[in-house]
């Protein structure tokens, strides 16, 4: 063994490494739809999201050796992506001057039911929100809260994964998620009231 350690990489090792790398790239590419879906709402626009996803994959392909096989590759990719997003200075640009209000959890339902002539089927009540209402309400949620909503509620990441991706404690993930959803519902209620007036 001591003698062999000095030997250069032999052909078999090179082939094994190439195989690992190709497998890594294929697994990463297979996740790209899911990565984009999350990136779309972490970034401010579709164009920004596309750039961010490209940068993420370029970096991932260069540093594939730092990924530990068998761990959550989607979370690993999102960790790269959120770091790139922060590096782009989004945090300073997009922080709103005032914190949007949160409403209680029942507030949105009550507003929808109130303005909808007493619709009783909960599945129909929700349909009174348009896709545009939802997209713009989500983008109005301050980024700290929105990041958590996007990862957990849209990306299906666990609290634990979201905590690692964003590098914040799990308790912070939970409290931001709780408040973020309330801010989102408050924004949605406002868009409904505007449409009704």
């Amino acid at each position, binding site marked *: 063994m001591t003698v062999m350690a000095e030997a250069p990489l032999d052909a078999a090792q090179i082939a094994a490494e*190439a195989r690992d*790398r*190709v497998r890594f*790239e294929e697994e990463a*590419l297979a996740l*790209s*739809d899911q990565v*984009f*879906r999350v990136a*779309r*709402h972490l970034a401010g626009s*579709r164009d920004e999201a*596309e750039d961010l*996803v*490209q940068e993420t*994959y*370029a970096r991932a*392909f*260069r540093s594939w050796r730092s990924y530990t096989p068998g761990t959550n590759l989607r979370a690993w990719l999102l960790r790269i992506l959120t770091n790139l997003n922060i590096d782009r200075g989004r945090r300073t640009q997009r922080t709103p001057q005032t914190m949007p209000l949160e409403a*209680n*959890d*029942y507030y*949105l*339902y009550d507003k*929808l039911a109130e303005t909808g002539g007493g619709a*009783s089927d*909960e*599945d129909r*009540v*929700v*349909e009174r*929100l348009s*896709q545009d209402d*939802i*997209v713009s309400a*989500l983008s109005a949620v301050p980024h700290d809260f929105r990041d958590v909503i996007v990862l957990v*509620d*849209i990306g299906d990441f666990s609290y634990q994964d979201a905590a690692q991706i964003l590098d914040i404690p799990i308790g912070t993930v*939970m409290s931001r*998620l*709780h408040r973020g*959803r309330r801010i*989102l*519902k408050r924004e949605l209620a406002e868009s409904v009231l505007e449409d009704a007036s």
Partner: protein
Amino acid sequence: MTDSPQDPCAHCEEMMQPYLDHILTEAERIEAELHLDDCEWCRRRYRFEESLRTYVRQAVSEPMSSALKAKLAALRIPLN
């Protein structure tokens, strides 16, 4: 049913998010379900929240363009 001095519906509202996230303790979950069994008013609002979460997820899902997909594949490092 509960020692809570609060209005039971207000308390149920507080438990809604953790209930739907399955992070209530067993005792809290039972407390919420007992209230929901009796209270249609809260039950409707829980059901709405569930539909809302699904609806939001669908509404914000934008498919990736095939152009971007091709660009990502082109970023792969060629074998040499």
